[in-house]
């Protein structure tokens, strides 16, 4: 707490009619802030008055400020009246639509920090906010983490205003609402809750708004922090929100009645509610033919199962239930294990951890070195380890297959949860063989069965396949032909479930299955 702030870091300084007092206040607030640019001018003809302009360097368009605002202030205010100077400046001196009056010091500071320009006028306890933001940004980058073969290549960026545009460009509907709020007493991060009014469930909106206001935090730097702050399943590795960097995916979610949260400075938006099935849906599933999309989706499900189960199953079968293997396989496995100094479990753990280290190093390593790391770590060391009989070739295959299959799931946080669960199942399988493996799978199912994301059971539609006329299952493991997907999923309000109707004779034919 300082003289100008309360214990929650809210600015308590009062707005004065005296410009000098206000300048002193702002100077005190922005003391030692080298990036803040401020200057006092005198404008007007005979009835000259003092004004004070303040902004943060490189957060505004300087050219616009000088050519469109300052030039006009000095040139066009010759007939300044004696009274109502503030209104005169507002109406005659500034050529912009985005002009707002601000009435408190706290507001002024907030606007300055957000990249707006503030003009204070002597004798008035209000100021003008002129929006001429021009912050450095990456523009609209290409999606790197959720690559698709077909469809948009655009990705969200760190700038909230760009992200908003990316959504608005895709959904040109006045019902697309973007409620904006600030979170973080120090970072004052802009957070936008985007949804399609009438389609998104009001109770979900109310719940997310309640959760966003539930905590007071000093700062939010990324959507991931907001996600953790507002989630309910804190002790579950499975995410309660779906995250994406693809605007088309976010737009599709909004159309399905889901809510998208944009967080300033974060290129990843979060989508809610979510289900396990949502994590297996890649954005280009909707753009490709249904046969291909179905095949790929099945592959992802199989991949996800393998990534959880393969190491555990390998240990369980080798140590306890070798009869499950065909004779040729069991002998081949036994032969491959001959002379390996570690037990099967230790061997699997060593390889698994090595691979995870390789993965982590690959992520942290500067780009050009990544390839070298893969070759040295993956190929050379792996081959040397097998040749030196430190590990068996089978375990290398198992771990490699496990690693590859993990990447078939098109959502990294979700795939990471699977990577963690894998160790739990591995431990149980090593302890109790196939019985332990089944215990692990059962525990996982029970856990997933109990999870909910904003009231939506995680296992929908598999756990409630008949609900919503069974249409949710049409876009689950199998993706039905596009024309068959006539209804929105359970995320949407009950009255707004129809999304596709066939026009016949200029008349729209409602879906027969309508509620």
């Amino acid at each position, binding site marked *: 707490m300082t003289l100008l702030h309360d214990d929650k870091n809210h600015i308590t300084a009062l707005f004065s009619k005296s410009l000098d007092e206000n300048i002193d206040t702002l100077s005190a607030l922005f003391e030692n802030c080298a990036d803040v640019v401020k200057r006092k001018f005198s404008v007007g003809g005979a009835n000259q008055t003092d004004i004070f302009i303040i902004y943060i360097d490189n957060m505004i368009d300087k050219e616009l400020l000088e050519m469109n605002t300052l030039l006009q202030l000095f040139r066009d205010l010759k007939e300044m009246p004696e009274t109502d100077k503030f209104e005169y400046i507002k109406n005659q001196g500034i050529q912009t639509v985005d002009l707002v009056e601000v009435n408190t010091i706290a507001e002024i500071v907030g606007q300055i920090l957000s990249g707006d320009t503030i003009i204070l006028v002597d004798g008035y306890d209000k100021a003008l906010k002129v929006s001429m933001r021009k912050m450095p940004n990456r523009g609209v980058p290409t999606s790197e983490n959720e690559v698709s073969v077909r469809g948009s290549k655009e990705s969200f960026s760190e700038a909230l205003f760009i992200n908003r545009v990316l959504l608005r460009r895709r959904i040109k509907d006045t019902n697309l609402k973007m409620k904006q709020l600030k979170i973080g007493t120090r970072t004052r991060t802009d957070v936008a809750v985007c949804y399609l009014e009438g389609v998104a469930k009001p109770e979900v909106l109310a719940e997310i708004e309640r959760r966003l206001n539930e905590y007071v935090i000093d700062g939010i730097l990324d959507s991931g922090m907001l996600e953790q702050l507002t989630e309910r399943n804190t002790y579950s590795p499975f995410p309660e929100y779906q995250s994406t960097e693809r605007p088309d995916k976010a737009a599709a979610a909004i159309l399905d009645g889901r809510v998208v949260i944009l967080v300033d400075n974060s290129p990843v938006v979060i989508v809610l509610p979510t289900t396990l099935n949502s994590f297996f849906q890649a954005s280009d599933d909707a753009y490709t033919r249904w046969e291909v999309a179905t095949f790929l989706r099945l592959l992802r499900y199989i991949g996800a199962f393998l990534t959880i189960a393969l190491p555990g199953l390998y240990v369980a079968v*080798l140590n306890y239930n070798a009869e499950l293997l065909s004779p040729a396989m*069991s002998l081949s496995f036994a032969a491959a294990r001959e002379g390996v100094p570690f037990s099967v479990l230790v061997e699997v753990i060593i390889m698994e951890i090595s691979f995870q280290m390789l993965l982590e190093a690959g992520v942290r390593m500067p780009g050009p070195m990544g390839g070298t790391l893969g070759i040295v770590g993956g190929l050379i060391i792996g081959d040397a380890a097998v040749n030196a009989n430190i590990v068996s070739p089978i375990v290398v295959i198992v771990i490699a297959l496990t690693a590859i299959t993990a990447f078939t799931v098109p959502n990294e946080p979700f795939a990471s949860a699977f990577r963690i669960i894998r160790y739990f199942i591995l431990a149980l399988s090593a302890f109790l063989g196939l019985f332990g493996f089944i215990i692990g799978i059962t525990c996982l199912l029970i856990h997933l*069965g109990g999870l909910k994301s904003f009231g939506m059971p995680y296992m929908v539609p598999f756990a409630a396949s008949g609900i919503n006329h069974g249409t949710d299952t049409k876009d689950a493991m199998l993706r039905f032909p596009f024309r068959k997907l006539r209804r929105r999923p359970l995320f949407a309000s009950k009255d707004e479930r129809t999304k596709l109707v066939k026009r016949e004779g200029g008349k729209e034919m409602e879906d027969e299955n309508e509620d």
Partner: protein
Amino acid sequence: MFSDNDKISLRQFTRLLVFDLFSVSGLIIPNLAAASSGRDGILAICLGTLYAFIYGYLILILCKQTGGRYLNYCDDNFGRFVTFFVAIPYIVKLFLCLVFSARIFGQVINQTLLADTDNRIIILFLLMVSAYSASKGMEVRARITEIIYFLVMVPIVLFLLLGIRKVDPANLTPLFTESMKDIGAGSYLILLTFSALEMMIFAVPMIHYRKSDIKKGKKMYNYAARAITITGILDILMYVVTMGLLGRKETADKLWSAISIFQMVKLPGGLVQRQDAFILSIWLLSIFTLTGALFYYLSYISGHILKLSNRNYLLVPLILLVFGVAVIPIDTEQFFYYFRRYMMYIGMPQSLIIPLLVACTGKLKKFINKKAVVNTVFAFIVAAGAVSLTGCSDMTEIEDRNFIQAVGIDAKGKDMIEVYYILPDLKVLTKQAAEDPKRLKLAFADKDFSEVEEDYSLENNKRLDFSQLKAIILGDGISKSKDKMNAFLTYVENKYELGRNTPVFLAEGKAGDIMDLNSDIEGGIGDYLAQLSRINLRNNGIKEIDAGDLILARNEGNRTVILPMLHADDKKMRVSGVGIYSEGAVGFYANKEESDFIYFSCGFGKNKVLYLPEDDKSNLPKYVIKINRITRTMEFREDNGKPYLDMIVEGSASIQKGLEKKEDRAKNSDIEKIEEECNAYVRENIAKTIKSICMDGKLDYMNLYPMTGYRKRSLWLDYKGRQADFLTNLSINLKVDFHIE
């Protein structure tokens, strides 16, 4: 949003009920039906299922009478004190069911999946996971069941349907041979397996009726009936496959005998050698649903009478209590005996009597407008007994096992046996040269098989593992001795690891001679015999004989099994004939030529080649004919109490050698002539074979008498226990009709 109201849909209710009714019961139903009603077990199951419909209906009626919320109804009408006494019998019953389920599955898993692990560890884990499932509530349990429903049901049904192919109908027929009392007792026992229906009385308030359900007039009973129907069908399938593969004796002997069929049914594809572990693992998923349900209702009822807001706190003491009772050192069969008696005389009657009393008294009280006056405080004391666990799970790494490829058994002296184990050559597999062939054959001589195993463990640093065993070869010293054959079959029956689907061969002399050829045969003798059995013999349409067939024949007593016989030549071996197992030992041996006609008379012998001799038999064969297809039709008749059999062996064949080049008409006439000669030749030889083996030797090698069970019931009944008379009186009218193509 979905609400956390602990409500489930009607469909979820049906699926939960199917798992609750079938998961544990499915394994013991074949035993219950076979032990109580013998061959009429299927009738007992049908009747028991029929009773279940009535039982379910009564439960729902009583539930309706109590306003749907059974325990609350008790509270409102009689007060908590009475509710306490109403709830106690349910708690006792659920507790005992839980102990029984944990115990039986602990033992099954211990016997099948985790042979070296302490049973207590298995039970503890089983209980913990079930309690975890119960802690999540009804909604989550219903969701999980919906997810795993098809995952569990589809493989099990497919597996059972595949199993039906192998079923011997003689094990299941004739029907209506047991007394009505036995069938009635059996059907009551089957009804006991449906006792989970009783839980509907507590589940009813948890059912969520959607508007559409109400509109369509959907009733809960319809859904319960659907679950009973599905369970009934599964029970029948399970019984048919178990009884059909194992026979009455083995099915009735062991409570969970059904587990043995998991080994015997072969899945197509060949990726998995033995699928028993796979099927059992899938089955396990459904077990957790039942044990979870028992925990759930146990905590629900206990929580209600204790007025606990969070019933999950009860789960920990419940785990300890159930665990404490489940590990009491008492024989499972004995425990089941007491449990069955409890269920018969207390468990089942109470499920109708208590709600009936509650409903009637409630109505009466309302009628005379009296209020409950007794409401006292009571306590439920939970005793927790922690049982210390010793050690961790035992396991052996794959490279530390000796996967035995083939086992040879010979008699040695009067009492001793000599057992040979053939090991795989792992060095060849890793391309590190080859193992000394002598080291790949281990020989042990001892009094019985367990002593042989002990000798092995003293001499070898790797665990003996039979899970990949490919063939068993029995020397003549073993196969001819009833005692030694019996000891061998008992050993196989009790050693779960040794698959019942392992092919069995006879050695013409000593099994050791065949085993000596291991180093001369590429891939080893195990591989060779597995291929011989699965490819060559099957190509000839010869039924593959495995250890399970011999056990069935031994247990049923009146069965015979035809075993292929091997002969060791210099550095190679060949199938030299067959031996016929009957009444505990191999009592008849036939050479190659005789064995062909033995197989023909049994309806096998596809691709066999016939050499029709010249009149002068010293000359080369006149015609060489290949049998392309062969079928056998049997029809039994009874005339003046005497059995008659019309036996037709027919099929198609092609002439390989002996047909002269002629114009079409003349050629056709030649073919007809050859056809006649061929049929006469086969007929003559089959008749000769039947006469010498069946009539003169009194050896029912075609299993004719057991066959009457499903072909001519009256004959089966007439000659029950007089099989030798059946063969003596039998007249066979044989017709052979091969069509030359």
